[in-house]
């Protein structure tokens, strides 16, 4: 199962003319599937506890990276579609301003005072947040606004919660610019 999954991933990545988004969504789904169903790995149960822990950490890192790629790609190219990643219980704190729920969060993000922007990610750190499969993702990077000379530096954290469909949504989102 693990072997087949990896071969399929490589096939999609290198042979299919898929948009990057579809690849990222596939990897996100694939990672989350394996995270929720560790027994799907045929070799999983034969590993030592240390081996399993290492594998779990790898999975958590993979989900974190796939999510970050997906999130900032959407942000930079199609901000309204970020709505798919939030739910009514989601909370965003944006530069100290607290906002709750998909509609309010998307309204805030689409009316930020710039048309185009580009996020460049420097660091991504991920950890399991609890026993319910939640994942914390801590990001730092730069944000280039169109027309501005210098990029802004930022830090952001996400708390991802698994959905019944096997994906993740953002329950907690905190964004801060890092002033020099």
């Amino acid at each position, binding site marked *: 199962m693990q072997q087949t999954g990896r071969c399929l991933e490589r096939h999609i990545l290198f042979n299919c003319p898929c948009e990057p988004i579809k690849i990222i969504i596939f990897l996100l789904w694939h990672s989350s599937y394996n995270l929720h169903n560790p027994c799907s790995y045929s070799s999983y149960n034969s590993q030592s506890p240390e081996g399993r822990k290492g594998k779990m*950490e790898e999975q958590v890192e993979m989900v974190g990276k796939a999510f970050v790629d997906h999130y900032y790609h959407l942000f930079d190219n199609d901000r309204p579609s970020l709505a798919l990643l939030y739910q009514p219980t989601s*909370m965003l*704190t944006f530069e*100290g301003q*607290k906002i709750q729920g998909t509609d309010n969060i998307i309204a805030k993000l689409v009316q930020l005072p710039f048309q185009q922007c580009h996020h460049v990610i420097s*660091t991504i*750190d991920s*950890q*399991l*947040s*609890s026993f*319910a499969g*939640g994942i*914390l993702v*801590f990001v*730092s990077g730069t944000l280039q606004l169109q027309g501005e000379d210098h990029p802004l*530096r930022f*830090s952001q*954290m996400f*708390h991802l*919660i698994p959905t019944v469909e096997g994906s993740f949504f953002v*329950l*907690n989102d*905190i964004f*801060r610019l*890092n002033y*020099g």
Partner: protein
Amino acid sequence: MDPDALAKAFVEHYYSTFDANRAGLSTLYQDASMLTFEGQKIQGSANIVAKLTSLPFQQCHHQISTVDCQPSGPAGGMLVFVSGNLQLVGESHALKFSQMFHLMPTPQGSFYVLNDIFRLNYA
């Protein structure tokens, strides 16, 4: 207690303990606690405190610029997101850092740090 007030109280306690007596941080972590320090992953109170007490400076001072907090879910946890400056004794310029904590309630009515991620913010 109001969540924002709780977050501020935790942050003050954490960094004043860090700056005065790093070993004293062990009461804030448990075996399940995870720290990622500049990309290095460490688990469990003993290992975490060993890492923090072995950092290559004797004295430091954290100065906090921002504290944001949100409840993390039905288990009563709280996420705390901090940014600030870290002044090392002997260094002319302070380092900028960001850090996030995931605090979980203890049966005794206190909190411990389940997740801790620290990153310096380089120019």
